[in-house]
């Protein structure tokens, strides 16, 4: 299978879906002439023209709302929000409107909309440019929220999202764009929304993660294998709907769980996963579920502070050792 980057997987998928369906169009700031702030849409303006690839003014509330309204009339907009931090000015449109329209109006109209946006971020991006808000969206009924970790899943989930008739929040990660993985060519596969995947089997402990943290989990699993610790990695892929059965099944087998996410610790994604596990696999747990997440500060710019405030492979290893304490 060809090996391509996560960026390429996204770019290919957008191009293929534009070609496949006349109603698909891309909108966002700097996605055209500028070629995309992170080059996800590179070349697409040239290929498909300004009717299909639309550069917008800086007016997220306006153009996100516009995309929702256009979707109600049958277009299938794929909106790029430059980074998730900027979606706050448009969140009313997403949460108070897009998420409710199908249900609240008794099923009369659909909102086939995708909002793509990178969340989190390593390095010295500073307090306003490094946040994770996928938990906010995952909280909202009516939305679907996906967060692929690999180029394969990025392609499959983006296809699924574009072809889905509900508003889908598609979470990316700056640090994943250059990562590589196998993606079949000439295969119109989709990765179903709502299903997690066991990305690696193991028997001692289950690590649950998504997006960039899945790559960290996979590295840690490999590293710990050399110590004889067998780590199972469950990649959530979808945050809403959440695939509780896959998580629970895994934990019932390993009896131990660690959840890792890049967001802030309290009230973050890991809280829901840990709460779910203790609820549904209580009698199987040999240790409390450990949560690994970001320190609760507005990300400081300074190098060391910045690095230390985001969860690392070390933090994950520390948590894994903790749940394994007394095991052998």
């Amino acid at each position, binding site marked *: 299978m060809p090996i391509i980057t996560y960026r390429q997987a996204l770019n290919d998928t957008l191009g293929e879906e534009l070609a496949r369906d006349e109603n698909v*169009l891309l909108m966002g700031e700097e996605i055209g002439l500028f070629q995309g702030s992170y080059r996800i849409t590179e070349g697409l303006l040239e290929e498909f023209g300004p*009717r299909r690839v639309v550069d*917008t*003014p800086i*007016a997220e*509330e*306006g*153009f*996100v*709302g*516009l*995309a*929702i*309204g*256009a*979707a*109600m*009339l*049958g*277009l299938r907009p794929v909106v790029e929000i430059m980074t998730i931090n900027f979606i706050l000015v448009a969140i*009313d*449109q997403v949460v*108070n*409107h897009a998420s409710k*329209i*199908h*249900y*609240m*109006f*008794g*099923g*009369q*109209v*659909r*909102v*086939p909309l995708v909002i793509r946006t990178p969340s989190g971020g390593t390095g010295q991006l500073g307090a306003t440019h490094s946040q994770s808000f996928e938990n906010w969206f995952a909280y909202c*009924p*009516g939305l*679907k929220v996906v967060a692929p970790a690999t180029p394969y899943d990025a392609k499959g989930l983006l296809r699924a999202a574009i072809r*889905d*008739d*509900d508003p889908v929040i598609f979470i990316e990660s700056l640090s994943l764009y250059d990562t590589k993985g196998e993606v079949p060519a000439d295969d119109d596969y989709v990765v*179903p*929304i*709502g*299903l997690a995947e066991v990305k690696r089997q193991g028997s001692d402990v289950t690590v649950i993660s998504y997006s960039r943290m899945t790559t960290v989990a996979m590295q840690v699993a490999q590293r710990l294998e050399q110590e004889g610790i067998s780590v199972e990695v469950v990649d959530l892929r*979808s945050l809403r*709907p*959440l*695939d*509780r*059965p896959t998580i629970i099944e895994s934990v019932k087998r390993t009896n131990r769980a660690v959840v890792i996410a890049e967001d802030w610790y309290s009230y973050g994604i890991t809280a829901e996963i840990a709460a779910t596990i203790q609820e549904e696999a209580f009698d199987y747990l040999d240790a409390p579920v450990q949560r690994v997440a970001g320190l609760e500060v507005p990300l400081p710019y300074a190098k060391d502070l910045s690095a230390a405030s985001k969860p690392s492979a070390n933090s994950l290893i520390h948590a894994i050792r903790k749940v394994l304490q007394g095991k052998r």
Partner: protein
Amino acid sequence: MADEKAVQAALDHEDVGTLRHYYSQMLLLRRFEERTSEMYVKAKIGGYCHLNLGEEATIVGLMAALTPDDYIFTNYREHGYILARGVDPAAIMAELFGKKTGVAGGRGGSMHMFSEKAHFMGGYAIVGGQVPLAVGAAYALKYQGKPGVVVAQMGDATTNIGAFYESLNLAKLWKLPVLFFVVNNGYGMGTSVENGSSEPDLYKKGGSFRIHGERIDGTDVLAVRDAVRRLRQRAEQEGEPAILEMTSFRFRGHSVIDADRYRDADAVRRGREAFDPVRNFGAILHDNGMVDDAFLRETAALVDQEVQEAIDFANGSPEPEVKDMYTFMYATPVPNTPDAQDAIRAVKINRGDM
């Protein structure tokens, strides 16, 4: 009231049947809202509930100018709009009663009506929220090369929120067939236009965007119709959006539960006298010999009956079933979402039956 001769001259160009139709439509809106208010007091209707009393000419005039191709997005003061767009009053009243037979299956209520068939694209209830959506619908029309325009209805006070301005810019920048239909009833809840807007001439609010605006007497159904027709055509054919400021007088408090204490009671009484679009239009038609007493009597009776039938229908209709709690949650089904069984179970627990 305006110069008698001019009115006479204007009316001469009109078809009497059409004028009578406008009148009975306006009366229907009037009576529908009055009875809605009654039903609210009887607790048949819940939640927040806003009436169109005083705005009948604005609404009927608008709808008279629109084509079936056009779409309309509203705020939450919307009963009249969906009524005048031709949707069955019974289904609207049923929605207010929260019944399965309502226009949104009882899911939406007063502030969230919808009729795909009538191109009535919803009430949204977040001030300004509907405006970008309407611009988006106009975007879709243009993209798809379809005829029609989109009306973004809103109140005066809504012109102070950011979404409105972002929408104006996008509409003009991309030449979209959309009309910003601003119902200036003088107040946003208890806040006067002057206390909310540094530019109280709302039709001038396109000034930052090169958008043309006009102020129209919203109590004059013909003036409204003609202005909408004219600007609708420019929007459709030239992609030239416009602001239409419709002046009117709010007959009651902001919502049915607002006692309206912040307005001078006397001034309100006088305002209702002077700016009653229904009575005034009836009087004009009568004075000009276009309707007689019998017509007015009969129309009132017919309208009353229609509204009563709507109420009876709503009363007799069933509520949506609890097993449908999750129905329409997602348009495209995906795994790991709750279903009817879950709904029934959850409701049982909630009611203490489990």
